[in-house]
């Protein structure tokens, strides 16, 4: 009798899977349209209503009435479902793959129980302006989660209003602006300092808030350069906005000194904690002296990424800055939760209402299922996984981990394929696309690329040792292929949904098309 399992292993290790991504060659939805098909019907307006009000359509001013129906696609219900399920199959979500390849995004498991809880009517069917008495439950969740974040960060007060990390950084920049304005120094203090390895949003959001941005380059070891910081501060310094650990996975050992230098110059310090997954329960913003911080609930706190949102960027501040937080703030008097709008010095609204409550609910549930010990375990295993991955990857031909030689990393590493590229001419992006042939993601780096031929991997705590081994095997296999059969790697992907995209039309105004209607028009020209 044949033992199928035997053929799946070589030298006791599982062979690489023979993956092929779902490939439906699915038309654009407009091509599926059949005139007259309906996907859903809505309740008819009762005759009694119609009789009472008569012809209301004619009360719309003539110039405001739609003349031509919109040329939307017309499909019956199962056909809409089928189309979207096929597209869903052609998407490699974290649920499906060993998603260590999207470094800095912290692609961890989003527990399904939290999804189900967030879809309960008691979460989904409540209006934000309902009388406070009727929403004590969700207010309790929001308030309690703020208290949790206070403990995780060591900061004094939180707002869950910003709609994601970038909006949180912007809100923090706005608070810094308000702080200096209150001291009458807004005009003088117009510079924000950041580092090149911090998330690009630190620079972009500071600039959006009207600041001049001074970027520090790292020292030879890849650490944020303290001497450069000292050269950067002046009476114009409004603040420091820095990610730590940085996207290279290196914890800045001088972080406290950084804060001190900026404080001495009269600036505030904001801590971008997008990379908090490796330091939960290990070290905190509060003790380090930061005045502001933010967390990405859709990264560290397990809320799903949703293809790019919805999300929450929770901001935390010291007592002194609490008055500037976005409005309203949630308060608890021992028995009742209420929304306080009476905040004259607040920066105002950052996002509608109070933030994305279902995302907060998922984060809250996640923390409640783990507790303090569990959160620490998350950080410890995330870091163990990362260092395990680091050790195994460095055994692969052509790869290196620049900077901090011999030192441990925290939760991610930015690798470099420079040697492999020199030897074979194969670039990092091409390796990534070949890796997709085995069912995994891969991310290079934010721009600008300081590390040449970069690859940023962040395992998080969600994957097993075996899964990490599989990811390593994939990269090892692709690396060997680059040396022996570079053309195969350069022409990847081969097992994905589509083949090599021709990007040329996307840069040409006469050819680019972001809608089907634009595309049809330009093609027919």
């Amino acid at each position, binding site marked *: 009798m044949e033992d199928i399992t035997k053929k799946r292993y070589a030298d006791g290790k599982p062979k690489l899977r023979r993956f092929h991504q779902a490939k439906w060659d699915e038309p654009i939805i407009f091509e599926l349209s059949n005139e007259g098909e309906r996907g859903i019907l809505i309740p008819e307006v009762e005759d009694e209503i119609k009789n009472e009000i008569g012809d209301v359509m004619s009360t719309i001013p003539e110039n405001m009435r739609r003349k031509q129906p919109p040329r939307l696609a017309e499909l019956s219900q199962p056909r809409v479902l089928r189309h979207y399920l096929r597209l869903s199959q052609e998407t490699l979500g974290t649920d499906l793959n060993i998603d260590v390849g999207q470094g800095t995004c912290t692609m961890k498991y989003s527990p399904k129980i939290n999804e189900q809880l967030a879809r309960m009517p008691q979460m989904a069917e409540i209006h934000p302006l309902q009388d406070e008495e009727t929403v004590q439950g969700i207010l309790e969740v929001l308030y309690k989660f703020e208290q949790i974040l206070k403990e995780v960060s060591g900061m004094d007060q939180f707002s869950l209003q910003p709609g994601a990390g970038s909006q949180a950084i912007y809100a923090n920049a706005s608070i810094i602006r308000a702080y200096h304005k209150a001291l009458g120094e807004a005009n003088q203090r117009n510079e924000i300092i950041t580092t*090149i390895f911090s998330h*690009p*949003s630190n*620079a*972009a959001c500071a*600039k959006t808030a009207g*600041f*001049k*941005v*001074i*970027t*520090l*380059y*790292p020292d*030879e070891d890849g650490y944020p*350069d303290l*001497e*450069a*910081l000292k*050269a*950067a501060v002046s009476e114009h310094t409004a603040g420091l906005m820095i990610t730590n650990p940085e996207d290279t996975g290196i914890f800045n050992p001088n972080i406290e000194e950084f804060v001190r230098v900026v404080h001495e110059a009269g600036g505030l310090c904001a801590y971008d904690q997008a990379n908090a997954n490796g330091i939960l329960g290990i070290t905190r913003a509060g003790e380090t002296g930061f005045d502001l911080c933010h967390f990405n609930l859709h990264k560290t706190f397990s809320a799903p990424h949703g293809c790019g949102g919805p999300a929450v960027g929770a901001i935390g501040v010291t007592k002194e800055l609490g008055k500037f937080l976005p409005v309203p703030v949630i308060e608890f008097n021992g028995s009742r939760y209420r929304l306080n709008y009476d905040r004259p010095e607040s920066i105002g609204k950052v996002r509608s209402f109070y933030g994305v409550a279902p995302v907060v609910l998922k984060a809250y549930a996640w923390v409640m299922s783990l507790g303090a010990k569990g959160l620490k375990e998350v950080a410890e295993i995330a870091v163990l996984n990362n260092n395990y991955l680091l050790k195994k990857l460095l055994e692969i031909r052509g790869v290196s981990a620049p900077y901090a030689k011999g030192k441990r990393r925290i939760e991610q590493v930015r690798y470099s394929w420079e040697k492999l590229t020199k030897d074979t*001419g194969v*670039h*990092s*992006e091409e390796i*990534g*696309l070949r890796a997709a042939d085995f069912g995994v993601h891969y*991310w*290079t*780096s*934010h*721009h*600008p*690329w*300081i590390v*040449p031929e970069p690859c940023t991997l962040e395992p998080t705590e969600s994957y097993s040792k075996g899964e990490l081994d599989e990811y390593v095997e994939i990269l090892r296999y692709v690396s060997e292929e680059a040396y022996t059969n570079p053309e195969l790697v350069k022409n990847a992907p081969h097992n994905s949904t589509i083949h090599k995209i021709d*990007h*040329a039309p*996307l*840069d*040409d105004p006469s050819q680019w098309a972001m809608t089907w209607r634009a595309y049809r028009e330009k093609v027919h020209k």
Partner: protein
Amino acid sequence: MGTSVDQGETRKLGLVVNPIAGIGGRVGLKGSDGEETQRKALELGAVPQSLNRAIEAMERVTPMEEDLQIITYPSEMGEDAAKECGFDPVVVGSIRKGKTTAEDTMNAAKEMLRLGVDLLLFAGGDGTARDIYDAIGEETLVLGIPSGVKIHSAVFAISPRSAGDLAVLYFRGRCGIREAEVMDVDEEALRQGIVSAKLYGYLRIPFEKRLIQGVKTPSSGEDKEAMEAIACEIVDRMKDDYLYIIGPGTTTRAITSKLGLNKTLIGVDVVSKGKLVGTDVNETQLLKLLEGSKAKIIITPIGGQGYIFGRGNQQISPEVIKRVGRDNIIVVATPEKINSLKGRPFLVDTGDEAVDRMLSGYIRVVTRYNEQVIYKISY
């Protein structure tokens, strides 16, 4: 914006090889100009490197064989390399085999410009780059295949293979275009161990725009846009009571252009109250202008090695620098330029060690409007 390629139209790639470039290096001679040095090198058993380098580069271009017409010069000046790679090139011009000169290089470049090449690849060193510049200036795109000893000009790819790759990327519409420095290095002085490099001119070269992958945020624009933004920033903050000593470079030229002035690309100009008060000045003229005036120096790194003083702007002498003061030095550089240094610091070589030391440390660099970088200076 990247250049887009017309499908169906045959593009033309020119190839010029300087057969004697780099001949000196392997046998310990610095540089290869002059018949004397060349003869000496050959006597010492030197083997010309540029043919092999040109082959290495052209091998990378073979996938585009069907879509490109290769135009080249006879035998050792390109034909051999092209044919070795399997191309069937159009051969123009005539040479005396074994006795090629700089003039042949220049004629080759001029001929290929006339024939309308889209990109001219040349194998050689700084000398060859100068010859190309003398022949055709910025009239067409060029790219250097490094084959010389030490290269100071920034018009070369990082390796022969990379030159070939870049050529392919260019024809596939994945390159931007920028101006890069051609340096004039005193080869005699070089043989004595002294580096004396002057800015000779600029050539237009293709540079790679990375494949659009790993995208999470859109890029914030090209070199040219950054230069414009820098110019706005500098001009906005110019004060009437200061003289502005503006060093050579394309980034600094953008500043004077914004003022509506014509700057000498490779010389040092002086601006006051929005007007030119000195063009292509030397040290003496600068010191005279500085008498009794407050001044600022605006400079940008010249060449691929990141020199902000000492390569191409020696007119801004140690004395001038001392008079103006370190605090009044404004460095401008696009983010692209900073990143091309790959973490290496700026370098200074004013000829005065004390001044070099004074300059070293950290300096603010204007990289865009309202954006600066703190960068290290070494000596």
